[in-house]
């Protein structure tokens, strides 16, 4: 600043200039903080993890647990109930699927992913049939909003689990028990067949050992002369099993039809929205049965997807856009693949897509044509910006 600066006439100006000089003498150019932001975030939320299968545990005929260790340093912390998105390359197709961590957060030597076979499950079947110890994968760091939030969930917890929905439940339960939380935790664990129950022996032992953990098994296709509880988790059934108060917190996790059914049943019991958490579970299998599906369009219709400046391909209406993009060699960042996390957001330049209720779009997304490609179904030829 020149000495003849007219601001010298302003009250306080010269003092401030002197104060600035003083600051300059004691300050740094921040070069000592080089890399600090990146390193700080990497300890909590690294963008990618490189994981190696250290052990494969056969849980049932249809289910395996894959124990994954980090190839570099300790695994980041997570909240029990969260998932990682596992990237795979299957016969040249780069894709990914989110899996809840079934191990507890108090140890971070490994993450367990418990995977149950799904009919025609592209990735699930690959994992169960082809993955071996020593194999490496990339994944996201743990994410998701399905966990016990101490700010409002309280200590009266009921988990309605269906099938592999027991995976996040197991992590949450062990976390509660390890940290000796003063919670009452009640699992109502539904399965079609007894033989499909995952972790059932361990759960029965834990229920005997801990007064604050209750396990209720409900079988929908019981063998003859089965003595236990049978049927579905109807409102009446849930009411008879759990002592529901205003403070009860419900967690629901299972296949999408199970989630939808349970949500409806607890709502019938007058349970408020704020007392129910439901884990999303992929795109809808039958979007054409949902309201607002265009009547003139059928799931098998073929449409053309054009990626601006890059190319085009044909795909079926009934296939989520993200999946067809990946099958055709395009990639978009993704994680939850259930419409929630918004990482797979792309812009539709022309054409219409069907956005099911799973798509948690922002108001302005709808306005300016942004969609969540993981749950979007193109109902005519479209052009997108990737």
């Amino acid at each position, binding site marked *: *600043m020149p000495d*003849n*600066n*007219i*601001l010298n*006439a*302003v*009250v*306080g*100006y010269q003092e*401030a*200039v002197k*104060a*600035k*000089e003083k*600051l*300059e*003498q004691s*300050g*740094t*150019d*921040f*070069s000592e*903080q*080089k*890399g*600090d*932001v990146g390193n*700080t*975030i990497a300890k*909590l*939320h690294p963008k990618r993890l490189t994981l190696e299968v250290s052990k494969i545990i056969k849980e049932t005929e249809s289910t395996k647990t894959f124990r994954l260790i980090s190839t570099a340093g300790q695994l980041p*912390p997570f*909240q029990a109930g969260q998932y990682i998105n596992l990237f795979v390359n299957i016969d040249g197709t780069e894709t990914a699927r989110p899996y809840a961590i079934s191990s507890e*957060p108090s140890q*971070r030597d490994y993450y367990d992913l418990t995977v149950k076979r799904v009919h025609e499950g592209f990735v699930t079947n690959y994992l169960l049939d082809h993955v071996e110890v020593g194999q490496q994968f990339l994944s996201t760091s743990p994410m998701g*909003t399905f966990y016990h*939030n*101490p*700010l*409002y969930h309280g200590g009266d917890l009921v988990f309605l689990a269906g099938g592999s929905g027991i995976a996040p439940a197991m992590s949450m339960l062990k976390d509660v028990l390890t940290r000796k939380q003063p919670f009452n935790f009640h699992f109502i664990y539904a399965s079609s067949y007894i033989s499909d129950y995952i972790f059932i022996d361990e759960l029965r032992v834990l229920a005997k050992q801990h007064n604050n953990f209750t396990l209720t098994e409900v079988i929908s296709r019981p063998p003859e002369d089965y003595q236990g509880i049978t049927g579905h988790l109807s409102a009446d059934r849930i009411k008879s099993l759990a002592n529901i108060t205003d403070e009860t917190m419900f967690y629901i996790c299972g296949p999408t039809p199970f989630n939808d059914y349970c949500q409806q049943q607890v709502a019938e019991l007058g349970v*408020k*929205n*704020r007392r129910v958490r439901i884990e999303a579970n992929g795109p809808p299998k039958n979007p054409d049965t949902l309201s607002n599906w265009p009547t003139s369009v059928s799931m098998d219709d073929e449409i053309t997807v054009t990626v601006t400046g890059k190319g085009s391909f044909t795909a079926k209406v009934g296939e989520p856009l993200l999946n067809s993009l990946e099958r055709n060699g395009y990639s978009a*960042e993704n994680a939850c693949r259930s419409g*929630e996390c*918004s*990482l*797979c*957001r792309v812009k539709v330049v022309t054409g219409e897509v069907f956005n099911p209720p799973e798509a*948690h*779009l*922002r*108001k*302005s*997304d709808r*306005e*300016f044509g*942004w969609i969540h490609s993981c749950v979007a179904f193109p109902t005519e030829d479209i052009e997108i*910006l990737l």
Partner: protein
Amino acid sequence: MEHFDAVVIGAGNAGLTAATALQRGGSKTLLLERHNIPGGCATSFVRGEFEFEVALHQLSGLGTEDSPFIMRKVFNDLGVMDKVEFVQEGELYRMFVPGEIDTTLPACWAGLKSKLQEDYPKESDKLEAFLKLCSDVTVESFMLLPQVRKTNDENQLKANCPNFIDYGLRSAKDVLDEFFDDEKLKTVLAAYWCYIGVPPSQMPFQDLAVLLYAYAEFKPWNIKGGSQALSSALLESFLEAGGEVRFNCGAEKILTNDNQVRGVRTETGEEISCSAVVSNASSVMTYNELLDHDVPPIEISKDFKSRRMGTSAFVIYMGLDCTPEELGVTSASNFVGNTMDEELIHDCMNTMDDPVAGMLTCYNFDDPSAAPAGKSLVSLVCLQYGDLWKDIAPEQYAQTKYEYAEKLIDLIEQAFPKIRKHIEEVEVATPLTMMRYLNTPGGAIYGFKQNPQDSNLFRDHIDAVSGLHMAGCWNNMGGFQPTYMAGEATAKLVLKELKEKEIEHA
């Protein structure tokens, strides 16, 4: 190699306005953004039935349709006025200090005066003079001073900016003390200090004057669909003008040749040639990590040494299953404090102790469409320096976060006692969350600490690397209006420079 006239690094407010103004001004522009969505902190996220506004509390500078102010022209020039809908707020804020203060100020210059005079009759004449001073200092420092400085004529300064000379650079506390005896009144008038991040004793009076005058005269606003709607509208305008954007694509290096920008290397390793780079990243990141120099340019280094890291924030985003009325909300913006001592509040920002002052913003009070019927969208905020959070062990992070959140809820519940029992969705953001999403040192939300020395009055424009320009809050004020304007101003400068180069080469 692909060539662009300009590459803009970062699609925050200033990056978006810079890119849009550049492209609309005829420069072929590439916008790089490391996230999947434009906006930086001007964004939103969805949980359940709620869409949470991340950062915007009160947009300033719009004025009304009948009495427009500068941001209407800026947004019009950027082609977004017809793409967004603004919502006017009726109140400036409610100030609540248990047992001491509970007052709500209207967003109206005349109404503000009469409300304050009614509440503090003994200070009536002083209030008249103080508010006139606020408007005079605002006009002098933001309209007249820039013209006068060009003349460098002290007589011009004395003739045009007499109030600025006497008051503009004194501390806000000093001026409040000169005018008033009533401590409560001083606290009520100084509430907006948290939009700057430094207490009244460290804040130049001109900043407080402009906040009070501009919000009351030109009104506080919000946006339908939140700040994300404006971010997306800016991007739309940029794309319509032919701009190119890449998401999930951070810049890794700014490449130079003989201290002249030649391109940008992205995190995927691709090199892009360009004549100019506009960085919307923090200046610390830009010069210390992105620029391909081993050490930052000497004038930058010197400038940095007189800067101090600014504040971050701790925010709780909440969807409540009750209406704003049921919650007791009478104003969109609410400041709640356990003390009237701003020094103490600022000291607390440097600790993990229980927060002693915070804010609650209710987004569907003035805009019912901001939440589902029968529900409320609120955020609870307290300012806090970010470095405190860096030393917390990763496995302790979640628990520390929730414990601190409980304290902030306790504080705010003194004014709004029913919050806890209505929580339907909640997400907690710490300074590390700000760091993660904004990529700023210390998770800073307003850039460097906005002490008097941070002001441009004490800084020369630095042109250390030819073709490299900054746009954002790091060499300007923080906040929405300042960053939108900073981006636009930088674009004008770059357009001029590119044009000059064109002529040179012609």
